[in-house]
């Protein structure tokens, strides 16, 4: 984008940019209206629903704690969708990378338990997760480029395979025999767990783990990478038109593999924090749907890394409010899933509105 030289051009740029804010917000309002009709048809009060979402997600420091704890993995899994999406790849198996990376980090801790300092164990676990995630989704990018295998389906199949790998080991060779309740790996130990971010805890009484900071930092870093570097430029060019990018001599294949590896590393980080900050071990609870909600977050943010954190917090709040809505309104826990699905559909349909209003861009009217 060329730097605007005059006031009129600045105004025009803001107008054009506002399209990307107004249309998603409009889509959210339409979703809320449709969902309200759905609730009315069931004889429930939409107003009570909205109040509960507010209270359960954003009303108190406790609800903020729940919201941000859920937002942290969502930021990272959404980034895992956004970066490949810039190259035109639709990866929906981030959940698989999260699960496998979480498992890998718990396994990496095993040889060190009981003797090593957390200063050794924590980086080892973190690296294990990032590498596992990067290889897992990187394979999807490689398959796409070298074999022409569709990345959407390959990544999803690999999600199911990741779940089987986790189950195979936690119910077999790596099962902690001292835990009779749920098949899990051995606990990584309290000392090796990631604690809450101190200043958020002290000042605002919100206990959120460091995954939130990692998520936001990654969002900023990837925003810079995609918008201010040659890599980002080449990636966007590839996403715009693969043939043109190839004709320009861009290494399309390498870009695809690299983008999916970055994506996998992000999902892997989410897996690490789920194990190291929440669960303390690897088990079936890793499969919590963060990878799938991340797809939605990324689409709502229009695959723009810097927009992902606020959207993730919005959806984290929605997920956090799920429990209270279910109890107070006598609705099934799938209510939040219905709302999320509805938002996703409306949002994608709203894509058709871009470029249709002369208000946003008087010149490019069509």
């Amino acid at each position, binding site marked *: 984008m060329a730097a605007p030289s005059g006031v009129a051009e600045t105004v025009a740029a803001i107008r054009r940019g506002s399209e990307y804010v107004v249309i998603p917000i409009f889509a959210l309002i339409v979703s809320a209206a449709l969902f309200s009709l759905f609730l009315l048809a069931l004889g429930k009060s939409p107003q009570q629903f909205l109040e509960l979402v507010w209270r359960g997600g954003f009303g108190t420091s406790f609800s903020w704690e729940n919201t941000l704890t859920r937002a942290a993995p969502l930021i990272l899994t959404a980034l895992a969708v956004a970066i490949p999406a810039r190259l035109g790849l639709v990866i929906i198996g981030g959940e698989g990378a999260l699960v496998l990376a979480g498992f890998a980090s718990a396994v990496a801790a095993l040889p060190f338990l009981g003797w090593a300092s957390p200063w050794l164990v924590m980086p080892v676990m973190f690296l294990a997760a990032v590498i596992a995630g990067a290889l897992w989704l990187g394979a999807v990018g490689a398959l796409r480029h070298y074999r022409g295998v569709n990345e959407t389906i390959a990544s999803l199949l690999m999600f199911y395979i990741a779940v089987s790998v986790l189950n195979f080991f936690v119910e077999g060779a790596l099962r902690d025999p001292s835990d009779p309740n749920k098949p899990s790996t051995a606990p990584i130990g309290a000392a090796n767990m990631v604690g809450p971010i101190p200043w958020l805890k002290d000042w605002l009484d919100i206990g959120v783990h460091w995954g939130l900071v990692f998520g936001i930092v990654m969002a900023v870093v990837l925003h810079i990478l995609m918008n201010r570097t040659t890599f980002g430029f080449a990636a966007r060019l590839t996403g715009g038109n693969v043939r043109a990018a190839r004709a320009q001599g861009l290494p399309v294949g390498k870009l695809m593999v690299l983008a999916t590896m970055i994506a996998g590393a992000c999902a892997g980080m989410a897996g690490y924090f789920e194990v190291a900050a929440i669960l303390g071990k690897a088990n079936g609870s890793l499969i919590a749907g963060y990878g799938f909600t991340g797809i939605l977050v990324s689409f709502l943010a229009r695959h723009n890394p810097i927009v992902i954190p606020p959207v993730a917090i919005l959806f984290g709040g929605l997920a956090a409010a799920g429990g209270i809505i279910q109890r107070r309104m006598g609705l099934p826990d799938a209510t939040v899933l219905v709302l999320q699905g509805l938002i996703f*559909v409306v949002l994608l349909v709203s894509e*058709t509105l871009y470029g249709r209003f002369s208000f946003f861009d008087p010149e490019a009217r069509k």
Partner: protein
Amino acid sequence: MSDAALVTVATAMFAGAIRVSTPFLFVSLGECLTEKSGRINLGLEGTLVFGAMTAYAISYHSGSPWIGVLAAGIAGSLFGALHGAVCRLPRVNDVAIGIALMLFGTGLAFFFGKPYIQPTAPRLPSIDFGFLVSNPQLKEALKINPLFFVGLLVAVAMWWAFKNTRVGLTVRMTGDSAATARAMGTSVDLVRFLATTAGGFLAGVGGAFLSLYYPGSWNEGLSSGQGLMAVALVIFARWNPLACFVAALLFGGAGAIGPALQSVGISQGYHFFNAAPYILTLIIMIASTSPKRSLKGAPGELTLMK
């Protein structure tokens, strides 16, 4: 492994292939029809789950499983119609809409299906071909659901129709080149809308089989990605309905490896055998695609293959 155990495993896999393949068959035929028209519907996973819930609920309330099957088909065609109608808008991506509808359909199915997890609905009956053989295990294996034969019939009919009828030709033309179809005066949007709606109907019926026959109850873990595997299955079958039938049997057999081995006491690696259909699908996709050329039989308009 002894001979007797081998026979047991083979029989269990044969029975499993027939039992497990039916939902694969229906959902892949639905996907095949949709893709032949040039569009891809990843939402069939959601349609399958919603169809399963609808079939169970309607069967419970009406007392007739066949009314349940019909209701599942109608519910499925509504999802298909929604996909078909939305995708004709400019700038709307059919793959992404499919993912969204998968989420939405699954959410609605879980939402409305909550009260039906406990009660027992009347199931679909099976036809007993056991009189043909003497082996007691084979007798059990030869209790086959009529929907299996309906699926086979649909596959043959669809294969024949693609080759020999005007409707089949129109669908194929629309899928291969929208420009040609337009030049011939065919409404591309209408053809794709109808193909997606009909595809949704078939997927809904596939879901009905899951809840009303095998495994034969409604719960939230009912479909583990069968609707999505159908997409891979159609690629494997090269968009040929008859090959879809063979591929569905193969997937059914792969899914039955784990339980079959368990029945003779081999439980080691059970979870890996559970993953067999997914690994098989992935291997098939790797083996059957190529970055250089488009696949034989692939509809030219398909975004997935570009």
